[in-house]
């Protein structure tokens, strides 16, 4: 990789991170517009309108949607006849660092040794770039491309997310019932609803969380499966509403990914009730660099 190619990747990834932290995708804007249209609770409608207005301001200013700018999570898709080198991963990491400074990201990296990072006694890194990204998730794609999804994960949803086993009793409905139960508990405590429910189901905690991440990379508000619709409708029936102030829209949509499963009575389920801004996501193709 030449210096020019390296710098080009850094620049693309930096811009992509800023876009992820500041921009609603069009299908999300439309989901909000539809929610506003059908909401008859005045407080709930006011919240939805304010969130959409905030998104317009953030996109225009290329500034953070939320002051919790989040922890970068990366999904790298590798297509036919392309290769990923260590140098490319270095460029991606540098792009993340530069993007965090440009957004700007909240400087919330914790310094110090293992114990100091746990009790926060080592202090905060004043550099926005001190927020290290989570490990990169690599997956295959069919196109001839190297596609990078950048997602920014906030702290509120992390507090309310849950990854645990479900005894399915050989009935899909049992699993869906448990997801709805966890989601109602989580969304009611979230404080930043309406949320998008991100759900992953796998054979281990790692796999379930990985599926949850991929569900956000692939999910669309205008394409919903029957199971996703059922979860959304049942959580909305709980009347939690935007910011918990009651109303019809507790959940805008559900993004669920079901992975391989094992011959067992157990499914490992990960439910993340993402906030009103998440998934904060943008994607870039690095193939042409």
């Amino acid at each position, binding site marked *: 990789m030449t210096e020019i190619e390296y710098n080009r990747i850094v620049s693309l990834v930096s811009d992509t991170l800023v876009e992820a932290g*500041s921009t609603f995708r069009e299908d999300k804007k439309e989901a909000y517009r539809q929610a506003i249209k059908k909401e008859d609770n005045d*407080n709930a409608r*006011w*919240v939805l309108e*304010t*969130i959409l*207005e*905030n*998104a317009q*301001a*953030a996109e225009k*200013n290329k*500034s*953070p*949607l*939320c*002051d*919790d*700018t989040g922890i970068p999570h990366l999904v790298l898709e590798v297509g036919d006849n392309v290769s990923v080198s260590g140098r490319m991963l270095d460029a991606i990491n540098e792009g993340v660092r530069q993007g965090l400074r440009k*957004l*700007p*990201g*909240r*400087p*919330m990296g914790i310094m110090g040794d293992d114990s100091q990072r746990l009790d*926060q006694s080592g*202090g*905060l890194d*004043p550099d*926005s770039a001190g927020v290290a990204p989570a490990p990169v998730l690599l997956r295959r794609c069919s196109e001839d491309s190297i596609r990078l999804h950048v997602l920014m994960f906030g*702290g*509120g949803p992390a*507090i309310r997310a849950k990854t645990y086993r479900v005894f399915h009793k050989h009935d899909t409905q049992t699993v869906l019932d448990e997801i709805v139960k966890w989601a109602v508990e989580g969304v*009611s*405590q*979230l*404080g*930043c609803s309406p949320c998008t429910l991100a759900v992953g189901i796998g054979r281990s905690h790692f796999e379930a969380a990985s599926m949850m991440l991929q569900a956000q990379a692939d999910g669309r508000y205008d394409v919903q499966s029957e199971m996703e619709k059922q979860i959304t409708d049942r959580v909305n029936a709980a009347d939690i509403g935007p*910011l*918990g*102030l*009651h109303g019809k829209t507790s959940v805008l949509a559900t993004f669920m990914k079901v992975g391989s499963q094992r011959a067992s009575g157990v499914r490992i389920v990960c439910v993340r009730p993402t*906030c*009103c*801004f998440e998934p904060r996501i943008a994607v870039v193709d690095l193939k042409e660099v």
Partner: protein
Amino acid sequence: MDITTPISDEAVSSLNVGDTITITGYILCGRDAVLPKIVKLIEEDRVDELGIELKGNVIFHTAVSPAGVGPTSSNKLEIESSIEPLSKAGVKLHLGKGRLSEKTIAALDKYNSLYAVIPPVTALLEDKTIERRVAAFPELGMEALHILKVDKYPAIIAAAHGRSIYD
């Protein structure tokens, strides 16, 4: 209704759950790390050392960073447990997000204080923030106690006079 700080007892008495308000003037910002330190100073009768007037003031549960401001969950242990002692010390409005316990709502009523939720609209709040500076505990960085001068921050009264919007 437009609220200007410092907030009077009469203004508190006139507000009810579900009222949409805007807040203008100087307000305080603090969250998990700094609020227990303020409470400790109150308990030790040393809060005057901060050189800050708590009576009539607003506490916004937020960090203050280059990314801006936005509410964190007010029902986190270290934040919610600060609401009663701060109200007793004269704070009239606690600004954050999320459901509070019945005990906290009763304490707000006891000291004629309010809780309001503010949407996490950082980009909009940035346009309404006129000044910002660290007021105490600078070593806490973005979690230090900050003073902001704000113009028409939007919020909804979520707990007042023993009632909660979440009921």
